């Protein structure tokens, strides 16, 4: 398969390219970041108000959380070439870890939630990774799915711990150990205070992931994805690299799950089920898994898609399914890949 819009994939492994660290930030990224940061201030601007309404900002918060999850997922799919159908275990597992520290330790700060989520997803990723990294392709997918279903089954059946299908409630947390005042109004909290909190965490995650993918470690993963045998020949310990990628990927998705828990206010077994893993895959493919920014865009776009499709029709899954089928058949490079292709072909015409 030719990789058209991923020039970094074509870079041969070597001291020169491995030493090439993160390049300059593209202009549109800066623009988007500025827009995201000033968005809550635009609420009363005529004509733009609807874009900056609390509802839209909460939607964007969900989108950013899914973006982090898909970003982590794509370290495996896009950069290492492993399709996991078990990432719900990290997302949902971290959300449940959050719910459990609330229930049993009476934790109330978001930092303790994030810590619980990260530690839990780290443990799960190490355990799953130790088992899964020896496999590739379909066996990897099925194995991750089977393992993640163990967690789902436990969450469903141990109802005296997890409240079964009712799920666990997560109250409004304190931020930065109480340094930031929490508004009384829950909507105000989610659409303003928590929006900014998620945005900052999101930016940190993107920056860290950017450094990881541009590091020699990231290049090694891409080498393994492109040619496992050659990667072995030049001395890379393939299972080890895959294992590390699996753990990093799981922790990112877990962090997203811990951020999701207070945003949603409730964790239910749905986000541990393998169909939720499928949705993370969907987001990534929607945005384009051959690029760095594709999954982020995919996470945000998927959330809008789901919200608006659910609004218009009860049968939203038909549309989502049809979009996924169309994506696979017609534009496997996703939104970013297709846009890139359009821009390229226009440039060539000039």
């Amino acid at each position: 398969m030719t990789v058209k819009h991923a020039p970094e994939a074509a870079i041969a492994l070597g001291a020169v390219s491995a030493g090439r660290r993160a390049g300059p930030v593209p202009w549109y990224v800066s623009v988007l970041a500025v827009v995201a940061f000033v968005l809550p201030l635009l609420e009363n601007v005529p004509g733009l108000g609807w874009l900056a309404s609390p509802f839209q900002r909460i939607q964007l918060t969900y989108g950013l959380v899914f973006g982090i999850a898909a970003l982590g997922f794509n370290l495996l799919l896009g950069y290492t070439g492993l399709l996991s159908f078990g990432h719900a275990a990290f997302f949902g597992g971290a959300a449940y870890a959050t719910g459990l520290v609330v229930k049993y330790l009476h934790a109330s700060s978001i930092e303790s939630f994030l810590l619980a989520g990260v530690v839990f997803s780290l443990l799960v990723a190490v355990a799953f990774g130790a088992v899964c990294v020896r496999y590739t392709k379909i066996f990897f997918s099925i194995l991750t799915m089977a393992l993640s279903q163990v967690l789902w089954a436990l969450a469903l059946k141990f109802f005296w711990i997890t409240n079964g299908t009712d799920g666990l409630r997560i109250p409004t947390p304190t931020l930065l150990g109480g340094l930031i005042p929490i508004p009384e109004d829950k909507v105000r909290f989610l659409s303003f205070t928590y929006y900014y909190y998620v945005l900052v965490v999101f930016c940190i995650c993107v920056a860290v992931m950017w450094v990881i993918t541009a590091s020699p470690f990231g290049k090694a993963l891409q080498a393994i994805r492109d040619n496992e045998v050659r990667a072995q020949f030049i001395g890379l310990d393939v299972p080890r690299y895959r294992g590390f990628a699996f753990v990093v990927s799981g922790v990112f998705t877990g962090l997203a799950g811990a951020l999701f828990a207070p945003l949603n206010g409730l964790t239910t077994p749905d986000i541990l089920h393998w169909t939720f893993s499928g949705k993370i895959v969907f987001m990534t493919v929607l945005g384009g898994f051959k690029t760095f920014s594709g999954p982020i865009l995919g996470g945000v776009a998927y959330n809008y898609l789901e919200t608006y499709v659910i609004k218009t029709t009860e049968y939203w899954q038909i549309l989502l399914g049809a979009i996924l089928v169309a994506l696979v058949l017609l534009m496997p490079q996703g939104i970013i890949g297709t846009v890139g292709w359009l821009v390229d072909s226009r440039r060539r015409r000039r």
Partner: protein
Amino acid sequence: MDVLVAQLLNSLLYAAVLFLIAGGLSMIYGVMRIVNLAHGTLYALGAYVMAWGLLRLAGESGTEPAYLIAFLPVAAVAVAATGAVVEPLLLRPLYARAEEYQLLLTFGLLLMLEDVMRYIWGPTPLTASSLWAAFGTLHLLGATYPAYNVVVIVLGLLAALMLWALIFKTRFGVMLRATSQNRRVAAALGINVSSVYVQAFALGCLMAGLAGAVVVPIQGAVLGMGVDALVLAFVVVVIGGLGSLEGALVGALIVGVVRTLAIQYFPELELAVLYLIAAGVLITRPAGLLGRA
């Protein structure tokens, strides 16, 4: 003793249904190297067609067991027809691409089919338990057991036998095995591979549809039954070996027995144990107990 017999029969019942689902999934993988995530949903489709047919056409008075037996093939063939449309339309363009794409596409298909069923038959479960009761009970070795469940066990056995005969004793079976071993050589020898693929896929769907149809009198047709059945079918084929029919039979028996035991002794861990067994087999024998690597 009677409890033991009843539990044994329960295990067999569960294994028979699972074999029908997982056998189709495994055969499709064996011949076409496709892992069909929508397979469980096709099983649910069989259940809905069956339940709808029984309720609509047989009506309230339809407690005659004959209706039920007559409808089983109708539901199964309806699902097979769906498969015969899906394969050339959606799956064929993917054979030349990386195998991850099939998982994505069949996941999309799953989402669509789930909602199509919800659209047609509504969100409430369809049941036909009066039919189940109409079959009465049997006395076997001191245990009283529903007669219909025995019918299902026998059907499962018959299906396994017929499938074995089809694959190992007929001309079509030779073509199927040849295609599964080497698609290009089979094509070079004059086998119409596209036609074998459609038939293999439809046959797999037929089995899934039959499985769905036979469980209707026992548990009805419910939304979401397909998604859960798929993961259990995966457990079965992973234990037995992806692509191996004997493996699917052995896997179904193991899962049937383990599940019955688990429900009896530690109900909370019922599902978790099954997934752990699958993971354990994949770790120790990646190709499954009876699979060829």
